């Protein structure tokens, strides 16, 4: 996750922009974290303050300022050496990035004949900062930075790249169902972009309560609500999200972090935290 950009057109660091009670960076880290199955690396500019991040996030400094995304890609891939073979690289300014998009892109890198880069060409534009890369490309990226060849296109000239257009992306039925417009690559560059994005309704998710959390006036569900975070989902069903409550996303990830981001189509189970016995 490249968080070290100058945000010059936004006028304020994009990573810290408020997003439904959380921040853009927190959201992107959370979405990436549950999509890829490995650690999340945040590349920041030297000295950059970051908003709070989930436990386990790896933060690395971009050693060379002003070298653009290829430097960030190099730093991020280098940090993942030994942790993973492939990585999804993104910027922090994609507020509608969906896990299904990440998974669709990463699965392009599976298999014996897989390329080195899975490059979406979505909504008419190549998306190098919403793409999948082999971690082994770190070496090439580092060399390109030293040579001052700083455009992603230079990297793509030196490796095998599969380009995924809208149809190729939507061939994944899950992605087609949950992000048909490919809003995953919609980015916010200016204050107007941000305001327009912020005014869009939160994603529709399904909430279900279990056990003692179900009360009169707070039915168990399942029912649809609009919420961008786990706490938002709890608020939508009038449930205090305190230390006695835990949430399970899509029957998988367990969390007590109210800032855990949600995406369209998510199911949130709220359970008593006093489990077992």
């Amino acid at each position, binding site marked *: 996750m490249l968080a070290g950009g100058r945000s010059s057109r936004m006028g304020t660091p994009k990573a810290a922009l408020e997003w439904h009670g959380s921040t853009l960076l927190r959201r992107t880290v959370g979405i990436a974290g549950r999509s890829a199955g490995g650690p999340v690396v945040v590349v920041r500019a030297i000295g950059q303050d970051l908003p709070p991040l989930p436990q386990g996030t790896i933060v690395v400094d971009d050693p060379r300022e002003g070298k653009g995304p290829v430097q960030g890609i190099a730093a991020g891939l280098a940090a993942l050496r030994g942790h993973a073979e492939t990585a999804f690289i993104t910027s922090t300014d994609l507020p509608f990035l969906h896990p299904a998009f990440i998974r669709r892109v990463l699965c392009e890198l599976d298999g014996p004949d897989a390329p080195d880069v899975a490059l979406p060409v979505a909504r008419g534009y190549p998306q190098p900062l919403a793409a999948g890369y082999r971690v082994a490309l770190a070496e090439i990226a580092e060399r390109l930075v030293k040579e001052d060849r700083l455009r992603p296109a230079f990297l793509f000239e030196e490796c095998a790249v599969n380009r995924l257009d809208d149809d190729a992306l939507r061939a994944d039925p899950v992605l087609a169902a949950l992000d048909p417009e490919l809003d995953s690559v919609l980015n916010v560059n200016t204050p107007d972009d941000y305001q327009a994005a912020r005014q869009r309704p939160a994603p529709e998710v399904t909430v279900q309560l279990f056990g003692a959390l179900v009360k009169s006036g707070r039915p168990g569900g399942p029912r649809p609500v609009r919420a961008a975070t786990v706490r938002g989902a709890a608020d939508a069903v009038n449930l205090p999200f305190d230390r006695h409550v835990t949430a399970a996303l899509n029957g998988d990830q367990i969390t007590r972090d109210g800032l855990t981001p949600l995406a369209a189509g998510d199911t949130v189970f709220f*359970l008593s935290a006093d489990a077992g016995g």
Partner: protein
Amino acid sequence: MAPGGYFGQALLVDVTDGTSVTLPLPDEVLRAYLGGAGLGTWLLHRVGPPGVDPLGPGAPLAFVFSPLVGTPLTTSAKFAVVAKSPLTGMLTDALASSQFAIAGKLTGHDAIVITGRAAVPSVLLADADGVRLLDAADLAGLPAADADTVLRDRLGRGWRVAAIGPAGERGIRYATISHDGRHAGRGGLGAVMGAKNLKAIAVRAGSKVAVSDPPAVLAAARDLRERSFGPATAKYRELGTLANLLAFNAISALPTRNFAAATFAGAGRLSGETPAPEAAAGESGASGPAPANLGEMRRVARSSCASCTIGCEHIYRVGGGKKARVEYENVFALGPMCGVSDPDAVLAASARCDEFGIDTISAGGTIAWAMECAERGLIDAPWLRFGDPGALLRALEEIGEAATPLGSLLATGSRAAARTVGGDSATFAPHVKGLEMPGYEPRTLHAMALGLAVNARGADHNRSGAYEADLSGDLDRLDGGDAHAAAAVETEDRAAVMDSMILCKFLRGVFTDPFGEWAALLSAVTGWDVTGTELRETARRIVLAKRVYNIREGWQPADDWLPGRLLSEPLKLPSGREARLTPARLRAMIDAYYELRGLDGAGRPHKDSLANLLL
């Protein structure tokens, strides 16, 4: 003079001739092991001969109380029963609750340890007048609850009874000891008692014991009582542990059909809460109004142990005028584990287990294993099929009566039965160290997987408690590693202290600084200047002492492991993520656990760590 809350002595009874002696318990031992499971472990070391036959006269059966018993502290009316298990060959300790704990302690002893074998079926009486044996021939074959009623009518006021059912008399390897409908359930303690020709033990209070600081204890009791009414215990009050069923089903943690799956389509019918339509649709996938489920059909009352303000017991109507306490574990074991979604059958099976006096977890696990054997042609029982309520009930009858070849086989537990059946049946026998597995799917709960593998009692959610870490959100439950090992150590330590002090684990959520707060409670009762740090050492000591006992009795490193199926058959979560627990991952977690416990690479303690065990 003994510390507050103690008498400073154990009563050793030889039922061969009805004699008894008093064993002084030094202060340093009481402080080192507290009571309950801890003190019981020390007593087993002290009184139990190495290599003893668990069903032989030389094997001790210890009823162990604690310094908190008889105080106004909520949930403190509990006792531990500790022995060498005939099911596992290792130490087993089981807790039961209520008035027996208080009356037993107030016979004037911190523990009552029984050896020998009575000449005829007997009841052991213990009170301020001493011990004596009564002929119990007329109680033979009675369910424990009925024997309890008959005895209390016969003996009169003040007597409290712990009894075995016909399963204990027949030596079924997972027979229980029961008091007032609550069970010292795991590990076959009922068979140990039955082997001593004891149908029951009756105790009557005749002494008093003081606490060190009565005003402090009263204040603590008031505070704990208030906290026990709060949100940390809401689940237990409102639904009981059965609340786990749909929750675990939702997160793929509900073992189903002998661990072939981790979700059960019929879970909604067995839950105590109104199911979602999809959950209630059942395996046929039928839509329409949700059919009545177990809770809607059958729950009639809520109850609690003596001295308990939580009230976790939910009573269900079974049929034929019978009622039963229903918990998650018995519904899981007799329901999803066997593929059965019929609430009537599950309740009936649960009640029948109570009548026979057998552990529902071991019964369900063994029956589920047998169902799979039958389906694979390893056992010749074409009627024994997953999902068939009639098969479940018939299998249970055969086990309880132990009169048919199949019943006798299954009465030995899944490990021993698998050795007899052979083939690859051992790979899917759902046990650890011979103790059948509780309702926590290890492949989707990796900290729990470790806890189940390493615990002294066997596959044991209660002595481990590591599922709390998996469900905390603090670590990835599908990515077991060092953090999971640390969590398993922490929860095991907490359980060791709670089981020894004794306080009910359903109270655990009210404590924000558990060891510190427990130390304060103990200090007020005993007069010791206990700290949280000391209690952590106490926990370590108790856990290590259990391991040392097991090693003495033949434990091998291979015993700290999980069934082959769990390490070779991954599951898929609804999210698409694979839940896989590989041998390498389990090995790494176990190794990390050993290191944290100060054990060598083979799971054995270093010699210099044995010194402060006071064994």
